[in-house]
């Protein structure tokens, strides 16, 4: 059974409302036309390739290229190195569209852009000059290497070490579940240093960086490439490689994750929106007990719940985005948005499988959304960790 893809253009109306509530009318109109234009491009050039990516038949380079060429990475980076200087919210909404088109591609791009963000925020003039233009254009691909075989949620306990030796650092250790591994031209590797933790830019061609075998049994996000990355006496030149302060790498990481959580949340909103759209279309056609599936009350309840869920998730993420734009603290809000959106996506995609019944269970084109979403309650801050973060912020405010 062929399942109709969601017309990305349907998202246009929902996005228009969000834009109007966040920005001045003129800005909202401009951003709206950007997103509409992007929708058309994604619909024509990414969605048709999406199923094949899940089935291991496609090449994520093709779909990523579409997003790079459109300039999705450039949207909210400041001008100067090729950025378009638009509000972060525009990028966030663009990533919802990307997630709705193809989850693996969106995630791959989002993670890549987090590294670009790291360089933009913490890089030296030279590092920015050397790397930002090619990262923003997609000429070069980046990977974010924080997680290790023995430490995910407890990132601070990482074992990878970077030891200063004259003008160099030698990095030793191993990173795990790294998206874009093997494809990336540059890796942002976090390691403990004498004074805390450091973030190091390591070139993919560095002989001390070894990419392990591709993790081939992933439940979802099958379009992207994920593997272990080992640093074996990996020598880097301190001045070129160290990003920001030698002891504050972990603090840098936390700041980066705040923003990337908004993005991951929005990607999940997109995934949920696509699955929901397929369920809607199916319910309007499917007949049972002399009626359409969409006529039955229990179905309608599900749709109402999903509609609210998607909207709430989007708005929660965009709230964090707006706080970020205004220069206000947004750590808890970003965590809330990501937590809610990712759990919502799993809920909504699961409901879609249920609604599509036998076809839901037996079609890659339906259950892949659930499988894709399922990663994101784990990665980029597991739900448990985010709950602890949110709770401690709440309690701090009470005292």
């Amino acid at each position: 059974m062929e399942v109709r893809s969601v017309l990305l253009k349907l998202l246009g109306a929902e996005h228009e409302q969000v834009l109007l509530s966040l920005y001045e009318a003129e800005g909202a109109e401009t951003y709206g036309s950007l997103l509409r234009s992007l929708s058309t491009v994604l619909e024509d050039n990414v969605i048709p390739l999406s199923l094949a990516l899940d089935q291991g038949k496609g090449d994520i380079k093709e779909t990523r290229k579409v997003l790079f060429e459109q300039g999705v990475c450039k949207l909210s980076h400041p001008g100067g190195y090729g950025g378009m200087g638009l509000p972060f919210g525009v990028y966030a909404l663009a990533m919802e569209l990307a997630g709705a088109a193809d989850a693996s591609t969106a995630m791959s791009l989002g993670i890549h852009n987090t590294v670009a963000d790291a360089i933009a925020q913490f890089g030296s003039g030279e590092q920015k000059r050397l790397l930002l233009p090619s990262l923003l254009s997609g000429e070069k691909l980046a990977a974010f290497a924080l997680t290790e075989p023995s430490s995910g949620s407890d990132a601070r306990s990482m074992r990878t070490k970077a030891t200063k030796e004259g003008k160099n650092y030698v990095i030793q250790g191993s990173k795990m579940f790294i998206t874009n591994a093997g494809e990336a031209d540059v890796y942002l590797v976090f390691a403990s240093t004498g004074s805390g933790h450091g973030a190091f830019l390591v070139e993919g061609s560095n002989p001390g960086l070894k990419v392990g075998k591709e993790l081939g049994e992933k439940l979802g996000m099958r379009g992207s490439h994920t593997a272990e990355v080992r640093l074996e006496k990996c020598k880097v030149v301190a001045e070129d490689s160290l990003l920001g302060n030698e002891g504050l790498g972990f603090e840098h990481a936390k700041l980066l994750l705040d923003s990337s959580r908004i993005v991951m949340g929005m990607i999940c909103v997109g995934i949920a929106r696509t699955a929901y759209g397929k369920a809607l279309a199916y319910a309007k056609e499917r007949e049972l007990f002399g009626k359409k599936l969409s006529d039955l009350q229990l179905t309608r309840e599900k749709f109402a719940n999903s509609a609210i869920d998607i909207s709430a998730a989007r708005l929660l993420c965009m709230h964090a985005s707006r706080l970020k734009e205004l220069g206000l603290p947004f750590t808890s809000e970003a965590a809330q948005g990501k937590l809610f959106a990712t759990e919502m996506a799993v809920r909504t995609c699961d409901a879609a499988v249920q609604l599509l019944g036998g076809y839901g269970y037996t079609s890659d084109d339906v259950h892949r959304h659930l499988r894709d979403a399922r990663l994101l309650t784990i990665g980029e801050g597991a739900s448990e960790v985010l709950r602890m973060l949110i709770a401690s912020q709440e309690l701090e405010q009470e005292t």
Partner: protein
Amino acid sequence: MTASVLSYSENADLAGEVSAAVAEVAKQLGTDVLALELDEISAGLRSSGRVVLVKGDRELEAEADSAAAAIAQVAKAKGFRAILVGETRFGTVVAAKVAARLKVGSLGMGKNLRVEGERLVLERDAYGGKFVARVAVKMPCVAMVQAGAYTAIDGAPGPQETMKVTAGAQKVALVDTRLSQRGATDIKSARIVVSAGRGFAKKEDLALAQDLATALGAALGCSRPLSSDLGWMGEEAHIGLTGAYVHPQLYLAVGISGQLQHVAGIKDSKVIVVINKDGQAPIFQVADYGIVGDLYDVVPALTKILKQS
């Protein structure tokens, strides 16, 4: 004498249909018909009224400009209530130019033309063919008659006269013609039409459709992507709003999803059969009979049964 209704088509078959339309309109107006033939009288001309053979200082039907100039001159000289032109690409340009020269309204793609008071009213497809619009325009006017909207009139033409006109300066020159190798049966007049769409994976697979067409004695057409994007078939095979309107007894849509624009071109078919592996394809909404299945299995099976019977 009361101004007449003029009819024109560069295509002899279509001219017969336009003559039928013109005869109806003239009757409602209580006026007469003038059939315009440019350069020479077509063999087998069917018309109900007088024929005006229009001759110019050079070939008039060589290009739309000269044809339009000729028609406009005749119209001015004779007086006219309406000029009905057969809808082909050439006809569309000619009609538009005639209307602009005579400063009268022009309506395209018309069927069911009638006179209501001082206005000509017709029906035509709108919004991709999803809707039908009834449109009126003040007479005198120009209107295009959709191919297949009328049955060609039966009858020999009436008295004939010749008129001389000036073709005017030649603005567009024909520098080359490249004839296509295709000798497709005319889909517009075929009794049975088989049509291929994107369901076919490659050009070579169209042989399956051709086999089916041969078994049925049918003409082979296609949806727009196959002629325009893919170039697997010529433009003359394209069936749809912006291509040919067909009205066969039997139309088989194979591997066609049924975009509005395509459906617009087939809705006057007597029986529509659809073969498509996607049961949700919109084309099933306009099917009399359908098979939800892989065309690569169904078409050969169908061809085989037809050959046996």
